[in-house]
């Protein structure tokens, strides 16, 4: 009996998985649980904070509202774990993710999902991606690679124009699988603090690139 009760308790405090992760629509019970969770954490209020962020990024009311509409859908699709992140942060991350079209899921989450789907295929007869889908995915990945290459070239040009030698080094090392700043510093004969302070400049240039690409005037926060 206690074991059953413990299981029930665990079920009630678990995160709500989204439809993407589950690979199916939410059941009525899951929807109710998700609704209750959002109510408890003042979703309407948190959504206003996220809407303000959307407005800051898009600089236009209609575009901000459109962005939030996509965030609403994305929240249901990707779910939310209150133990991992607060609702307001989750929504703001989704705003950023939708605005930049970044795919937020980690590799680990994707692998877990693949495992779940394989299991569903066996137990529930769930369809797995077809050969056509896999071909389309390959095409999408190729397009994503081309886009990223173009963005990195723009970034390189910006660093060159600014004479930012440290960030040029960071870019080269990053493309060579090196992510350790200490090693980058040692290999380039520079002080590691130069690499730390370069991060701020790099973020600023990326934000400017993202804004310009979307036709939004770029303004840095004070």
């Amino acid at each position, binding site marked *: 009996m206690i074991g059953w*009760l*413990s299981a029930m*308790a665990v079920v*009630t405090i678990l995160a709500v998985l989204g*439809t*993407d992760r589950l*690979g199916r*629509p*939410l*059941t*009525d019970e899951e*929807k*109710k649980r998700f609704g*209750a969770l*959002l109510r408890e954490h*003042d979703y*309407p*209020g*948190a*959504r*206003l*904070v996220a*809407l*303000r*962020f959307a*407005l800051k990024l898009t600089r236009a*009311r209609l575009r901000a509202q459109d962005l939030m509409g996509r965030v*609403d*859908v994305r929240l*249901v*699709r990707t779910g939310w774990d209150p133990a991992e992140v*607060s609702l*307001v*942060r989750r929504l*703001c991350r989704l705003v*950023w993710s939708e605005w930049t*079209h*970044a*795919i937020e899921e980690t590799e680990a989450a994707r692998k877990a999902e693949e495992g779940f789907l394989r299991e569903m295929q066996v137990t*529930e007869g*769930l*369809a*797995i*991606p077809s050969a056509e*889908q896999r071909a*389309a995915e390959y095409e*999408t990945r190729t397009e994503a*690679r081309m886009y*990223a290459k173009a963005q*990195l070239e723009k970034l390189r040009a910006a660093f060159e124009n600014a004479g930012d030698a440290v960030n040029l080094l960071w870019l080269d090392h*990053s*493309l*060579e*699988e090196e992510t350790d700043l200490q090693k980058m510093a040692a290999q380039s004969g520079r002080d590691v603090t130069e690499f730390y302070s370069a*991060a701020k400049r*790099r*973020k600023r240039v*990326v*934000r400017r690139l993202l804004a310009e690409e979307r036709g939004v005037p770029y303004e840095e*926060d004070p």
Partner: protein
Amino acid sequence: MPKRGPEDVWRQLVDEAGEDEVERAASVSVAQAENELAQAGFDVAAERAKGAALIEDLEAGRHAGEGKAAPSRAGDGPQVVTLPGPSRRFMRARWLALPAAAALVWAAVALTTGVTVVGTGQQPRPEDVQAAKTLHEKARHECAESKWKACLEDLDAAKKLDPNGEDEAARRDRTAAEGALRGGR
């Protein structure tokens, strides 16, 4: 060593660039967001209603987004098959079982976590819960108008009525009011 793909590096850069922005954006209080949105010409009540509508849709067992389990970007997910939902009979039985299940879950949480009720040891009366909610709403408006003292007093009064009823928005209002009063604003 295989080279890191440009898409990996670009994604890292975009995530990195967003970290500070997200943190800054998420640290804003609901009251401040309401003010700024109103100044930008938004109908704040209507925007709030959109959030409430999503909750109501979910609680009523419907939501447009859930049918769109297919990803927005082509090809980053599997085909989706709708599994059969529970029967009407089961739904009715489940509604009857819900209060019992809720009591059992509460017992289970207490058993597994050792949680005890702080305060009088009794659940607040429904009318007290409702009054506390009204005070939270009032406090929110007071915080929006920078009436920090009144805001904090109402939050304290609400807490006396419903000790566990302070939701995330009320906690944010409390933090904002306490911070403002400490800072002498």
